């Protein structure tokens, strides 16, 4: 065989293996063995972090980096995400659940050797609340005594209920008991920031050459829109338990390019901010390096109920909303469009809570017959009023487009309703949604903490996140009641009652419960799927690494 035809054969074989032969011959999508030789994990990082300052960060990729660089009083258990002792070795909670006293470990130091004390925590938390910081997560601290007043500019710094009693003791006083307060503490905004570095370098303190941190890793390099390089922090109190020498987070918004990097063995793990494109999933299923798990999120469409918008819209009629939901074949969407192992949603509280004792809502069937009946009852359809064209608003994204297109088809086919789908660029979309310029708008809600309240509170009458401006006093009352209920089972029962009202009224059309699917090399060990897709790197290690 001459050289040219040998080369042609190589190309043909390579293409062949890409296109179809994977299932037969190779049980993996990426390489079977690791390409990199070092003890450094190569991970997809998603988009460029907006900030890695614990006090200012508000975006997923930024928070993921902060989790490696900084450690709060508590840290996440990699399997369950229950809070474990972090910088604090123990804590006490008062009888009424409003006063917490934390004891810090002895001998904690920052990565530059400066001692880390309870005063650092006090200063950091108050920094988040300071109005001039303009921290977007500041509202998480509003339950702390005097926190809201200080943040809004009416109170003073000294009245905030956070105080270092001595170098190793931190006292926190809350306005009201918050059942999930401890589970917030591993979260980025509650991490300490080094006062001395912040004051010396100002905004530039998070640069690799200036940063001082206290977590399992420290920052070596940060090239915008390219990569973030971490290495093991030698001053971390639990350094012997950190098994990776470091990690490279490859920053890119282009999922297809990340997929190719994984395939070529340049990435060990796609990372939790990058999802394989849905159209690839059927081909990835069954591969040894593909996995699919449930995720704490719900995908739904808002239905605008604001009084001052869309007067006379048929969507203001509850029967119409119900009809639309019944005519949406969510099973088909999940199976053929979303394709990533999502489950059709019967409510807004994700199914992860069902195993934790949350009562399953009554299932919503796919029933075009009943849908047409309801529509006729509302006066539309044959013999009735003509149903005006309605519009679905979604932001520019392949996945959202495909779902909107599928729903457009379903409603046309089953109800004879004309739907226009309007794709808007993200900021315009958000601005229209917030201003209420829409009829139906695509939304996704990811839980901040492991309690159904995180999903239900957005429907409170006075919530800014309630974009439908749906108002229901009974719903508000039930949620209020639930908050003061310490017993989990009974709290869940109250939540479920509230959710039932929501599903009766339908200010939203739930579509599916999110899943988290990813590609991860079989050589990456210590990876545990969990509800929030949080995977501290300190608990991962590489098989057969030096």
């Amino acid at each position: 065989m001459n050289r040219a035809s040998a080369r042609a054969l190589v190309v043909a074989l390579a293409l062949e293996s890409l296109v179809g032969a994977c299932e037969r011959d190779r049980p993996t999508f990426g390489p079977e063995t690791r390409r990199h030789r070092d003890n450094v994990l190569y991970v997809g990082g998603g988009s460029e972090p907006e900030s890695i300052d614990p006090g200012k960060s508000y975006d997923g990729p930024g928070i993921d980096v902060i989790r490696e660089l900084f450690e709060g009083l508590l840290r996440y258990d990699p399997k369950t995400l229950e809070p474990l002792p972090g910088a604090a070795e123990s804590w006490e909670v008062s009888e009424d659940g409003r006063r917490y006293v934390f004891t810090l470990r002895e001998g904690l130091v920052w990565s530059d050797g400066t001692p880390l004390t309870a005063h650092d925590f006090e200063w950091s938390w108050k920094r988040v609340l300071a109005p001039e910081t303009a921290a977007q997560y500041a509202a998480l601290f509003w339950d702390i005594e005097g926190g809201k007043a200080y943040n809004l500019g009416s109170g003073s710094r000294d009245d905030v209920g956070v105080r270092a009693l001595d170098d190793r003791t931190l006292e926190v006083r809350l306005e009201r008991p918050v059942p999930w307060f401890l589970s917030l503490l591993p979260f980025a905004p509650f991490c300490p920031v080094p006062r001395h570095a912040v004051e010396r370098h100002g905004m530039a303190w998070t640069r690799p050459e200036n940063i001082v941190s206290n977590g399992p890793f420290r920052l070596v390099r940060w090239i915008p829109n390219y990569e973030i390089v971490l290495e093991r922090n030698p001053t971390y109190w639990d350094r012997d338990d950190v098994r990776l020498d470091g990690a490279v987070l490859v920053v890119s918004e282009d999922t297809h390019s990340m997929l190719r990097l994984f395939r070529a063995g340049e990435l060990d793990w796609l990372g939790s901010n990058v999802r394989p494109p849905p159209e690839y999933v059927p081909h990835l299923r069954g591969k040894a390096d593909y996995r699919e798990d449930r995720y704490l999120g719900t995908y739904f469409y808002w239905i605008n109920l604001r009084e001052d918008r869309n007067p006379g819209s048929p969507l203001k009629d509850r029967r119409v909303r119900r009809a639309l939901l019944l005519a949406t074949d969510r099973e088909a969407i999940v199976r053929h469009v979303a394709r990533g192992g999502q489950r059709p949603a019967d409510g807004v509280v994700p199914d992860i809570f069902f195993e934790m004792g949350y009562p399953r809502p009554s299932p919503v069937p796919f029933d075009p017959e009943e849908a047409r009946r309801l529509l006729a009852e509302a006066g539309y359809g044959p013999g009735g009023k003509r149903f005006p064209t309605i519009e679905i608003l979604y932001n520019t994204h392949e996945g959202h487009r495909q779902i909107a297109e599928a729903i457009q088809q379903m409603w046309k086919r089953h109800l004879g309703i004309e739907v226009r789908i309007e794709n808007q660029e993200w900021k315009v979309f958000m601005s229209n949604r917030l201003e209420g310029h829409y009829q139906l708008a695509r939304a996704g809600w990811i839980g901040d903490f492991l309690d159904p309240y995180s999903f239900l509170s957005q429907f409170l009458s006075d919530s800014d996140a309630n974009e439908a401006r749906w108002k229901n006093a009974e719903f508000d009352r039930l949620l209020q009641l639930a908050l003061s209920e310490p017993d989990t089972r009974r709290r869940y029962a109250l939540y479920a009652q509230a959710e039932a009202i929501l599903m009766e009224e339908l200010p939203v059309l739930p579509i599916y419960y999110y899943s988290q699917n990813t590609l991860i090399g079989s050589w990456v060990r210590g990876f545990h799927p969990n509800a929030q897709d949080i995977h501290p790197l300190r608990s991962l290690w590489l098989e057969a690494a030096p």
Partner: protein
Amino acid sequence: MIRFVLRRILGIFPILLVVFTFSFVLMRVAPGGPFDAEKPVPPEVKRNLELRYRMREPWCEARFLPALQGVRSPDEERALRRASPWASRAERVCTGLFQYGWMLGNYVRGDFGPSYKYKDRSVNEFIRAGMPVTLQLGLLAVTFALGIGLVAGLVAAVYQNRWPDHLAMIAALLGISVPNFVLGPVLILVFSLGLLWFPPARWESLSHVFLPGLTLGSAYAAYVARLTRGGMLEVVRQDFIRTARAKGLPERLVILRHALRGGLLPVVSYLGPAMAALFTGSIVVERIFNVPGMGRYFVDAAINRDITLAMAVVVVNAVFLLVANLVVDVVLGILDPRVRYE
């Protein structure tokens, strides 16, 4: 000639001011603000943020919409603004003017200001990090373009209307007709995932830069080939070439020593705008190959309403283009004795 260059350099500044103003206005009138997010922050927090980034000006509020300062919810603010549209508009314009002045002041001091999206960074850092990479990528692409384009163009001109000419010109047209968001993935599929010759993305070593350079350069190579061919054919018809031939110079020497110099003029004048277009042209290539350049911000910053970052890349691009054009004019003057500086 020095006076010409000096005058041109001075002429750059008013153009930059217009570009600055135009892009500022475009960014400000576009709907959607930099701080609109899926999980809305409480209005008070958003207010703090807007004050910090000069999207709100207390003086303007007090002057035109004093009622605004007691408002505590976005719905209330909306209602208030709708009730007095003119005062609301005046307040917006006033705030915009303050912000404009603030940014212009920054620019005069050589500071592009803080990024609205990336809260830890100043825009200068993004430019400083991205520009060298984009320049490298651009130079590489131009090298490819010249290398491939000149040879193809020369061959085509020498063999005019014979098959090498047709072949080269069809290849050139193909280069122009395939979008680079198609060419990039195809090259990756064949050369990195198939043949394993090059890595599929990233910007580390020589082997990493090859595919992105080729992808970006291909369209330019095609243009260069067409321009070279045209320029050569034009020159070859002229008298001094006939003279050279008549003198019995070998054809190779005629082409390389005499014709090339004149034939390259169109290529040189094309290079100026082309170099600048590489800045914006690299958007796709940077994305597909994970190259940390600044081309991406033309699109990303505009979409994120990162006002300062978007304006900075537009202004930097303008500077680059104007300087590139100036350089081209000077080079043309050196190459072509017919050009006179006015």
